[in-house]
């Protein structure tokens, strides 16, 4: 047992759960992205992290630009609907501020890596990658033969992050978590991780079962932190809409090192906003 989820402040939770050098996954598929938690990681100047995410977007651009990461494991990195992640590109193309190693997969491969991690298996099998150049550059893609049909399939190793971080709509006072709407690979992220943190919009007296909801019982969650608005500029269904303008506004900031560093000082290091 990981023990029962404790309800912590966000800054305490990050200080306790995330260590330099850890493999950290902050997951969210457009919806419920744990942005405030990412900012707190920057604020606490964590470094040498291996960041994992299927769809690294601007909060990963920020973490990379701030120099928190030495490696990124991902399947699609971009500012959705806007364009490139310029801090990510600057790290890969120019090693700024630090070199960034990458390990890239397809979505199907990443989803299966998390699923294998959640299932306590060392690897997953999928129909994937055949004929692509990905296996040449990604050593975590291998072939495996079906022991019944002889067919060749792709195998990918499980992902078991040291820390998995997600954002959900609600937790109850006992630390049980409920999220709904598009819930992506977040259940798998928590179940695959050694430690987990769920930031939530609110802590409620009782969780009411809802259609399409995912419930994570408190005995598989390490910590819960109440962080209203913690997914902004992404959205939290039932709480607030996606701030589409912000994704546009990020482009010129991310494009320029100086602008980015100003942003970092003003919006992260200069404020404890997202810490409570």
């Amino acid at each position, binding site marked *: 047992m990981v023990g029962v989820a404790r309800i912590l402040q966000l800054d305490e939770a990050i200080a306790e759960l995330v260590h330099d050098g850890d493999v950290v996954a902050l997951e969210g*598929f*457009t*919806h419920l992205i744990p942005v405030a938690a990412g900012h707190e990681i920057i604020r606490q100047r964590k470094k040498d992290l291996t960041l994992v995410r*299927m*769809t690294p977007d601007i909060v990963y651009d920020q973490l990379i630009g701030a120099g928190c990461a030495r490696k990124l494991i*991902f*399947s*699609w*990195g*971009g500012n*959705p*609907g806007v364009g*490139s992640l310029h801090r*990510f*590109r600057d790290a*890969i*193309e120019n090693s700024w501020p630090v070199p960034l190693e990458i390990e*890239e*997969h*397809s*979505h*199907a491969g990443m*989803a*299966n890596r*998390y*699923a294998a991690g959640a299932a306590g298996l060392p690897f997953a099998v*999928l*129909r*994937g*990658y*055949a*004929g*692509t*150049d*990905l296996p040449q*550059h990604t050593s975590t893609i291998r072939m495996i033969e079906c022991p019944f049909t002889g*067919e*060749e399939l792709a195998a990918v190793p499980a992902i078991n992050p040291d820390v998995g971080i997600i954002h959900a709509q609600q937790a109850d006072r006992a630390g049980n978590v409920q999220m*709904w*709407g*598009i*819930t*992506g*690979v977040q*259940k*798998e992220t928590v179940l695959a991780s050694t430690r987990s943190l769920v930031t939530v919009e609110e802590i409620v007296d009782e969780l009411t079962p809802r259609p*399409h909801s*995912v419930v994570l019982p408190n005995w598989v969650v390490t910590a819960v932190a109440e962080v209203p608005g913690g997914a902004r500029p992404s*959205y939290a*269904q039932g709480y607030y*809409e*996606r701030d*589409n303008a912000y994704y546009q506004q990020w482009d010129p900031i991310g494009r320029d090192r100086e602008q980015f560093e100003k942003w970092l000082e003003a919006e992260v290091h200069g404020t404890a906003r997202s810490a409570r």
Partner: protein
Amino acid sequence: MSEFTADEMMTVAAARSLRDGAACFVGIGLPSTAANLARRTHAPNLVLIYESGTLGAKPDRLPLSIGDGVLADTADSVVSVPEIFNYWLQPGRIDIGFLGGAQVDRFGNINTTVIGDYANPEVRLPGAGGAPEIAASCREVLIVMRMSTRNFVDRLDFVTSVGYGGGRGDRERLGLRGRGPVKVITDLGVLEPDPQSCELTLTQLSPGVTVEQAQEAVGWPLKVVPEPTVQPEPTETELTVLHELMETR
């Protein structure tokens, strides 16, 4: 006759390629616009599937991302991302997948990973996302891209998603179960695989575009069918619905 842009022609052409009742794996941007246009015109029973896990979404406005809340709100079901790839895409249940990319070659292979050398890229692109398995597993693939010698290249810098590989028979050899790209829809016209060689061949031109213009926009000697047709212009209805749709963003 209404005015229309090359992009509008491309969107309308993509929408027309979607038959009613088909299950369609939709990416954001033009594919989503085309699919939503089709659903509002000739294909009211088009089944929209987004990789975020929404099955049978019926958005009343154009979704702004593949994970837009309107998709979950209007879907028949919302499933996890592992499930959407494993239970829905991988077995070949999806009729049509859409792909775009930075580069395409004459066999419909696509690069969305990197321009230049992988280790020292000129331009680092977003990467694979769902594309390799969409390209492998959907019964048919539609590629939508603007035509230029920068995009339609003789040799890809990186093969992210397989079309016909090196030509006929390669999909079977690789164990890919879908048919592969059946159309490449561009601003200048439509390419389709040659039934013998699988090489992309110009079969349709957009209104007002010449064969020579299309050939100049392609980085290899583009083959052309004996008598390429001209795509019917967008109808009044198609344009009206498309404009209305764009206003809902």
